[in-house]
C-alpha cells in the first residue's frame, strides 16, 4: 500500500488506517454527563417554545432538557421518542442550525443556542445504551399493514402502527433496512453502525416483520399489497438519480454521489475504498457536501464542489458548507458543467459561469476547466417509477393531510411524497402521522 493523496487515478488506500479512522470518527462526539448538565442548564424552558415549533416532529424540547437537568436522561429520551422514534438518528443528522437551534431564543440573544441536538443525542444514547425500549405494544388488533420502504418514514410509520397493536410487514428493496440512514448519510454522522442498531432497537416493539430485497414494481405490486393488507404505506424514497445530460457523462469514473456514499457506508474497510486524486462534485445539496467531504477524508488531494447557483441557494446548510470548507473542500458557486473531458476515463470538467436572468439561469461565455479523475454527480434524485394509479404532484406522490394518496387505503410519506423538506426528521413526522391516520381509520372500520 504505497498510494498517497498524489497518486493519479481512482485508487484506494491514499491514507493509512489510522488516519482514516481519525477522519471518519464521530463528527460531534457525545456529551458526557457533566457537559450535558451544563448544556441543559442553559435552556430557559420557554413558554410555547419556538424550538418545538421549529421541529417537524414537535418534540417537547424544553421538557426533555429539563428532564436531563433533573438527572432523568431516560425520561428525557422517552419524551423524545414519543414524538420521534428516530430521535437518535435525528440528533445526529438534523440540520439543527436551521431548525430547533435556529429558533432557540439564545440564538437570538447571544448567537449561541442551547445545544439541542447534542442533548437529544445524550438522552437517546443513554436509553438505547441501556437496551431499554420504553414502549409497550397495545393488544393485537388483527389488522395487517404493509409498509414499503424501511427508511425513516417507513420505520416511523411501522413503529407507530405496531405500538397501536397492528401487525406490520415492512418491505425494503435493499439488503439492509434504514434507507438513507444506512446508505445515504456521511459516515462521520452516524458511526459504529448506529443506523442498524437503531432499527434493531426500534423493532423491539414487536409486531414488525422485515422483508428485504423486495422492490415495488418488481417483487411487489401495489395492487397485490392492497389486496393482501388492510392498508399500505409507501415510503420508498427517491431511488432515481438525476442525470447531468452533459457531453462526456459516459466516461469512466463519473458516478452518482449517492452510489459513492452508499458504497463507502457499506465498506467494511475504508483502506479499500477508492477515490480520485482530483475529485469534482457537482451539486449543492447535502449529498454533494457529504460526497465531497468524504472524498477529502479518504485522501483525495483536491476536491471541488461546483454548484450552478449562488451559495445562498445551496440546499446544504451553512453549517454543512462550513464543514466542507474546514475539511479543505473548495466550493465554487455560479457555474455549471458544459462538457466532461477525457478519454476512456474522465480527465476534467469544463464549466461555464452562470447568470441569473428573468428567464432563469443562463450559461455565460466565460468558461473554466477543472482537472478531474473522478466526478461525482449530486444534482438531485427522483421517484423511480410510479406505482399504478397514484396521482403525482410535481414529480412526487400527491398526498392530502396525513399522507393520504389518491388511492384509498394507500398512504405515502418521506421523500417520495409531496410536501415538507427532504429531511430525516420530516420523513419521521410523515410516517408517524400517516400511521396515526391509518390507525384512526382502521379503528373506526373495526367497530
Amino acid at each position, binding site marked *: 500500500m504505497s498510494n498517497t493523496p498524489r497518486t493519479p487515478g481512482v485508487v484506494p488506500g491514499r491514507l493509512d488506517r489510522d488516519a482514516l479512522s481519525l477522519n471518519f470518527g464521530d463528527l460531534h462526539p457525545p456529551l458526557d454527563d*457533566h457537559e450535558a*448538565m*451544563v448544556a441543559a*442548564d442553559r435552556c*430557559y*424552558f*420557554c*413558554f*410555547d*417554545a*419556538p424550538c418545538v415549533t421549529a421541529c417537524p416532529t414537535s418534540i417537547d424540547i424544553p421538557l426533555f432538557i429539563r428532564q436531563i437537568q433533573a438527572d432523568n436522561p431516560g425520561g428525557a429520551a422517552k419524551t423524545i421518542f414519543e414524538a420521534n422514534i428516530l430521535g437518535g438518528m435525528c440528533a445526529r443528522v438534523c440540520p439543527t442550525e436551521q431548525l430547533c437551534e435556529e429558533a432557540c*431564543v*439564545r440564538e*437570538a*440573544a447571544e448567537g449561541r443556542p442551547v445545544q439541542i441536538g447534542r442533548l437529544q443525542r445524550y438522552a437517546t444514547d443513554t436509553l438505547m445504551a441501556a437496551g431499554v425500549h420504553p414502549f409497550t405494544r397495545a393488544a393485537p388488533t388483527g389488522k395487517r399493514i404493509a409498509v414499503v420502504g424501511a427508511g425513516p418514514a417507513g420505520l416511523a410509520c411501522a413503529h407507530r402502527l405496531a405500538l397501536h397493536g397492528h401487525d406490520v410487514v415492512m418491505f425494503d428493496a435493499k439488503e439492509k433496512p434504514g434507507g438513507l440512514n444506512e446508505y445515504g448519510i456521511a459516515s462521520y454522522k452516524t458511526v459504529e453502525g448506529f443506523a442498524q442498531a437503531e432499527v434493531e432497537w426500534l423493532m423491539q416493539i414487536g409486531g414488525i416483520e422485515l422483508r428485504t430485497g423486495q422492490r415495488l414494481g418488481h417483487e411487489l405490486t401495489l395492487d397485490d399489497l392492497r389486496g393482501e393488507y388492510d392498508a399500505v404505506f409507501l415510503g420508498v424514497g427517491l431511488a432515481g438519480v438525476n442525470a447531468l445530460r452533459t457531453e462526456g457523462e459516459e466516461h469512466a469514473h463519473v458516478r452518482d454521489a449517492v452510489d459513492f456514499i452508499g458504497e463507502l457506508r457499506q465498506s467494511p474497510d475504508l483502506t479499500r475504498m477508492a477515490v480520485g486524486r482530483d475529485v469534482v462534485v457537482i451539486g449543492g445539496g447535502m449529498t454533494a457536501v457529504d460526497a465531497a467531504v468524504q472524498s477529502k477524508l479518504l485522501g483525495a488531494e483536491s476536491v471541488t464542489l461546483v454548484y450552478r447557483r449562488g451559495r445562498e441557494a445551496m440546499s446544504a446548510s451553512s453549517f454543512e458548507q462550513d464543514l466542507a470548507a474546514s475539511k479543505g473542500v473548495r466550493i465554487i458557486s455560479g457555474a455549471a458543467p458544459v462538457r466532461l473531458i477525457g478519454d476512456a476515463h474522465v480527465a476534467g470538467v469544463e464549466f461555464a459561469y452562470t447568470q441569473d436572468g428573468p428567464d432563469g439561469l443562463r450559461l455565460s461565455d466565460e468558461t473554466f476547466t477543472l482537472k478531474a479523475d473522478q466526478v461525482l454527480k449530486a444534482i438531485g434524485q427522483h421517484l423511480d417509477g410510479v406505482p399504478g394509479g397514484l396521482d403525482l404532484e410535481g414529480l412526487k406522490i400527491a398526498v392530502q393531510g396525513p399522507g393520504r394518496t389518491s388511492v384509498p387505503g394507500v398512504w405515502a410519506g418521506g421523500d417520495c411524497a409531496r410536501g415538507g423538506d427532504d429531511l430525516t426528521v420530516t420523513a419521521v413526522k410523515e410516517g408517524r402521522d400517516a400511521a396515526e391516520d391509518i390507525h384512526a381509520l382502521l379503528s373506526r372500520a373495526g367497530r
Partner: protein
Amino acid sequence: MADLSTNFVGIKSPNPFWLASAPPTDKEYNVRRAFEAGWGGVVWKTLGEEGPPIVNVNGPRYGVIHGADRRVLGINNIELITDRPLQTNLDEMARVKRDFPDRALIASIMVPCEEHAWKAILPRVEDTGCDGIELNFGCPHGMSERGMGSAVGQVPEYIQMVAEWCKAYTYLPVIVKLTPNITDIRYPARAAKRGGADAVSLINTISSITSVNLDTMSPEPSIDGKGSHGGYCGPAVKPIALNMVAEIARDDETRGLPISGIGGVTTWRDAAEFLSLGAGSVQVCTAAMVYGFGIIKEMTAGLSDWMDEKGYTSVSKVTGRAVPNVTDWQYLNLNFVTKARIDQDLCIKCGRCYAACEDTSHQAIAINPGRVFEVKDDECVACNLCIDVCPVEDCITMERLAPGTVDPRTGRRVEANYANWTTHPNNPMSKAAE
C-alpha cells in the same frame, strides 16, 4: 484608594475581611497562608476546654447544594470544634500573632455553660496575645447535643449569663456569635448586649439536611448509611443573614451594637451589603473553602474600587448606610405605583414573563402576534416577578406612574404624597386611632 483598615471594638485589621471560625482556621499552617494571602483577620477555629480533645466523624463531614456547572451554592457541615489539644492551638495562636501583629486574631471559644469553665480558659487565651474572643453560641450540630453551641444560643438568659462571666474574667473584647436557629434574632442579640458583650457576630450556620441519597435513603453527608443535620452556609444563606443583621441594626435595644456580618459573603459586593446593613467587619468561610484564600484579593480590590467610586473614604462610612431604609411593611409608601415595561428591542421572546404572570400571578402580560409580549397596565400589580424570571438584564423594568396619572388597574389617580398602611382607610387600626 479608600482606607479599608478597620477598628472593630478595638480589634484592628488592615481590611474588614476576617476568616470565620471554621475548618479553614483550624491551625497555624492554614492561618499563615491566609494572612500571607492578605486576609485582615482570623477567628481561630473554636477552642474547647482542657482535656481529651473532641472527636470528629471519620466519614464525610460536608454536604453540598450545587447550582449550574457544579457551582457551590451551599455547604453543610457536621465537623465539630477543634479536635486538637487546647495547648497546641494556644501555642500556634501565639506564634501567628507574634509574626502578624497587624492582623486581627480572635479566639472562638466553646466550653460548658459553667462559670469555672470560662474562668479557666480565658486567661490562657489572653496569653496568646490575641485581640478578642468570640463566644460560639451558634453551632447547631453535635456540640448542641452536649448543651453547648446553639443550645446556649437558643436561650437568651444563658447568653447574657456567659457574656457577663466573660466580661468579668477578661479584658479582651467579647463578641457573641449568634445562631440563626431561633424565631427572632433580636432576643439573643438583646441578651448579649445586656450581658455586656462588645459586639455580636452572625449568622452561625443553619440546621439543615442538604439532600437525601434516594438509593440508600440516607441523608447526606452519609456516615455508614446514617446522616445528621449539619450547619448550612454559603451563598444560599446570605439573604437570611442580611435580614438578621438588619434586624439587630435597627432594633431599639440593640441599635449601635457592633456587628460582625457572616453568611455567604463571596465577593466584595456581598461584604458591602453586610456593611451597609450595619456590619463593621465581615467573616468569610464557605467562599474560601470553595475557592481558596486567593479570593481575598478580589474582595479587597472590589470593595476599595467601589468605595472610591462612591467617595466613601473609610469602612466606617459605609457601615449602617442602608439601615435607615430598612423599615416595617406598614411604613412602605402605598402611593408608589409602578408598572412593568418590556423593552421590545431587548426581548428575546422566551415567554418566561408570560408563563410566570399568566400561571402564577396576575395575568397582566399579553402575547401578541409574533410573540410580542406586552404588559396590560390594567392588570399589572407591579409584583416584579416578570423581571425576576426574565433572562435578559434590564429587558423588563418598573416604571413609576407619575403623580396625577390614573392607574388603569384601580382607576384611581396616583397621589404625590407618601401614604402608608397606618393611615389607610382599610386599616381598622387607623380608624380606631381617629
